[in-house]
């Protein structure tokens, strides 16, 4: 018993060291976010808010902003103010929306999280399952059918698939709405509301899933082909395990290891893809918000969005790493 405890103790210790890596990268991002606008030539106020915004500002507003960011104070005071503001969830003031950046982002973020979260889960699950089946039955009809389709999908740019789906199902067939996340002022509630949201989510979600499916599928299939050559597969066969157990419990589980790493690496790619797609589908997520902020040159908003996106990416990577460690005992004890 005591040895068991000791072993867990060991894991926790290891996990802490590894967690600190994430904390370090997070701090680095915060500091960059703080330093970059202040390193631009000229007045930080100009750098943070841009010429145009300042022209529209009254001297009172300007004084308020200077006070708020402690721009007249030495840099360490500014840093302190910045961090305290962040801790309070204050990412600055969006002059375009005329409200706090965090409030604006919180309005848009749930839609992006819904879209990318679902797309992430669905594409990973389907990709892995199809990859396992395809790899296990290499050369079969199923494999011969899936492989070219996936390679074709994998070669298409995401917004391109989005535009085609939008034209086909939205414009021509009229099966899906052309934009938005829900019907405005429809007053739906309960099931109707969920259905309405799903209806709007459908096309962007399918696009994102299709785009993300191919790499997961291809990698899983490849990993399966390698795993199936491992000797423990022969051991499993000689033990008389069922096909399903061999395919999923042994070959599949072991093939998952490289796939999980790759999925983790592809999370940022998926988020940027989602940002593009939101613009294509006029989906009111962070991508649309970023687009608006960019065209309005709302720098605090842009910075806020970037910070949130980076934090999201870091968090997902952390979760993926955790999963990997749970999946592979060799990593668990070697770290």
């Amino acid at each position, binding site marked *: 018993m005591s040895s068991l405890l000791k072993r867990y103790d060991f894991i926790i210790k290891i996990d802490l060291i590894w967690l600190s890596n994430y904390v370090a990268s997070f701090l680095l991002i915060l500091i960059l976010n703080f330093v970059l606008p202040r390193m631009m030539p000229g007045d930080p106020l100009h750098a943070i808010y841009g010429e145009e915004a300042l022209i529209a500002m009254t001297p009172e507003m300007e004084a308020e902003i200077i006070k708020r960011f402690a721009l007249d104070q030495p840099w360490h005071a500014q840093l302190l103010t910045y961090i305290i503001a962040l801790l309070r969830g204050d990412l600055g003031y969006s002059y375009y929306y005329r409200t706090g950046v965090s409030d604006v982002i919180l309005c848009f973020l749930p839609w992006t999280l819904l879209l990318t979260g679902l797309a992430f889960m669905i594409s990973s699950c389907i990709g892995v399952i199809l990859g396992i089946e395809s790899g296990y039955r290499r050369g079969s009809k199923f494999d011969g059918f899936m492989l070219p389709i996936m390679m074709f999908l994998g070669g298409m740019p995401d917004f391109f698939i989005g535009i085609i789906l939008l034209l086909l199902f939205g414009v021509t067939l009229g099966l899906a709405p052309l934009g938005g996340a829900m019907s405005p002022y429809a007053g739906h509630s309960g099931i109707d509301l969920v259905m309405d949201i799903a209806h709007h989510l459908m096309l962007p979600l399918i696009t994102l899933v299709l785009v993300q499916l191919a790499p997961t599928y291809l990698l899983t299939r490849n990993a399966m082909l390698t795993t199936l050559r491992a000797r423990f597969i022969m051991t499993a066969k*000689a*033990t*008389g395990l069922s096909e399903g157990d061999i395919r999923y419990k042994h070959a599949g589980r072991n093939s998952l290891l490289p796939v999980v790493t790759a999925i983790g690496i592809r999370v940022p790619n998926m988020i940027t893809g989602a940002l593009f797609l939101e613009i294509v589908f006029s989906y009111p997520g962070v991508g649309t918000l970023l687009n608006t902020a960019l065209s309005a040159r709302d720098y605090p908003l842009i910075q806020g969005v970037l910070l949130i996106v980076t934090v999201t990416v870091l968090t997902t990577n952390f979760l993926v790493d955790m999963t990997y460690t749970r999946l*592979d*005992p*060799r990593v668990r004890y070697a770290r």
Partner: protein
Amino acid sequence: MMLEISGLVARYGEHEVLRGIDLRLEKGDSLAIIGESGAGKTTLGLAMMRLTGARLDGKLLFDGMNLLEFSEDEMRRLRGDRMAMVFQNVEDALDPVYTAEEQVCEAISAHNKWSKTRIRERARALLTAVGLDEMRYRLYPHQLSGGERQRVLIAMALANDPDLLILDEPTASLDALTKADIVELLRSATSDRISIIITHDISLASSLSKKMAVLYSGAIMEMGRTADLIRNPKHPYTRGLLRSFPSMSTTKDLQGIPGRTIPGIGGCPFHPRCTQKMEICEREVPRPVELNGRQIACHRGGIVPLLEIRDVSKKFNGFHAVSHVTLTLYEGETVALVGESGSGKTTLAKILMGLIEPDSGEILLEGERARWDAGFYRRVQMIFQNPKESISHRLNVLQAVREPLDVQKMGSEEERITSAMWALESAELPTDPEFLRRYPHQLSGGEAQRVAIARALVMHPKLLIADEPTSALDPSVQAKILRLLMDLQERMGLSILFITHDIALARKVSDRIAVMLRGSIVEEGPSGEVLREPAHWYTASLVECASICTRTVGVPAMEQ
């Protein structure tokens, strides 16, 4: 419970990996399948479980059911339940993501609908039985040592108490002590079922099996009782395998088998490497023939007797120089005739060479009565103790070596020179004109003996009678000459009757030893056996003497 395999053929495309295997095993039988890598051993093991990717034909009867007609699902229910396999403990023989206990549990639950607790209890009992430390049950394969992983693999195979247990190289890559433990464990695991041990490790095979089959190029060359087969191999391939395997019971230096496996040839698969092949061996596949519990697939019925001495006696003035000597020399083997001076060794050699007429008894060469004509001397040659005296001082090297051809009027002038050059090269001598023109007195002792060997080889003899061939040489030259003789034997299948008084020397070069005392052979047997347990007091005293004489001679210790 019975496993009956007949005419089992495994093919990958056109290539036959197994060419008609016949086996019959009953409960309690243990069969070792030995052979070089690529012989098809593992394919045979996997074929019994129908786990090989090769196409199978023939009959595979397990308990009366032909497994080759079973569906994949029916096979799956047999595997791990009634038939199980222990794989070689390679790095990934166990799934890296599950613990030892989980994998044994899985092997049990694959064939039993038991509660989780019951399965776990059984798994733990198995792991205890195979001697895995309790603290290590919940560890992952990468945290276990090679021996521990092997134990887990054995526990998995034994999970459902199979009737047929196949062990594929179960101790490869284990150190000697761990190996001894695992062998002990396997010995108890293999009893009371049919077990098949696939290995190239003859010592493992001999400790785990009662029967042994030698597989070569997908065909069984020889099969018989393990102890018997090792003591007295009858197929040239079996003998070659045994000679290449380092063991504590043989004393002769390691020899190999010439050439390498050539896949997909017609006739006897071993014929390109066989030193006693005939024309038929290239044409027809030999059928396995059983005789006295030994099955041999060889057109010549196994290793052929080359020289048979039957009850030969010779008296000189009422003194029995040679009395009732019976001795058989097989193709490609070395028999050492050991005895003190005056024991009749040289007289016997002279009788064999036809220099002295025996009073009684007969001598057969390749089954025919020796007539000591030209044909006889083409097949039997002799080398003597003192080479400088045995080569005429009037002949130079080339003349001396080609002289036997000139005497027998064999071949044209050019052919004789070519043969002589070949013989010189075989004896590892230079063939430059300067050397060829040398006379015996210009040669060193070692060179002169090599010339004598080349002179004997030029006739492509089958038997070489070597009477104290190295006693006049210094030890380092002696070692080289002996090495040369063994190499020639390996390459050409030469039989050697090695006459010596030095039992320590005989031990290193001979397959069998015959001890001669006062004209009779008092003891004869495999060298290792004769030396380890001499049956006759005279042999014992010879061994004793040699031990005392050589005990003090060893590699000197390094000065500190």
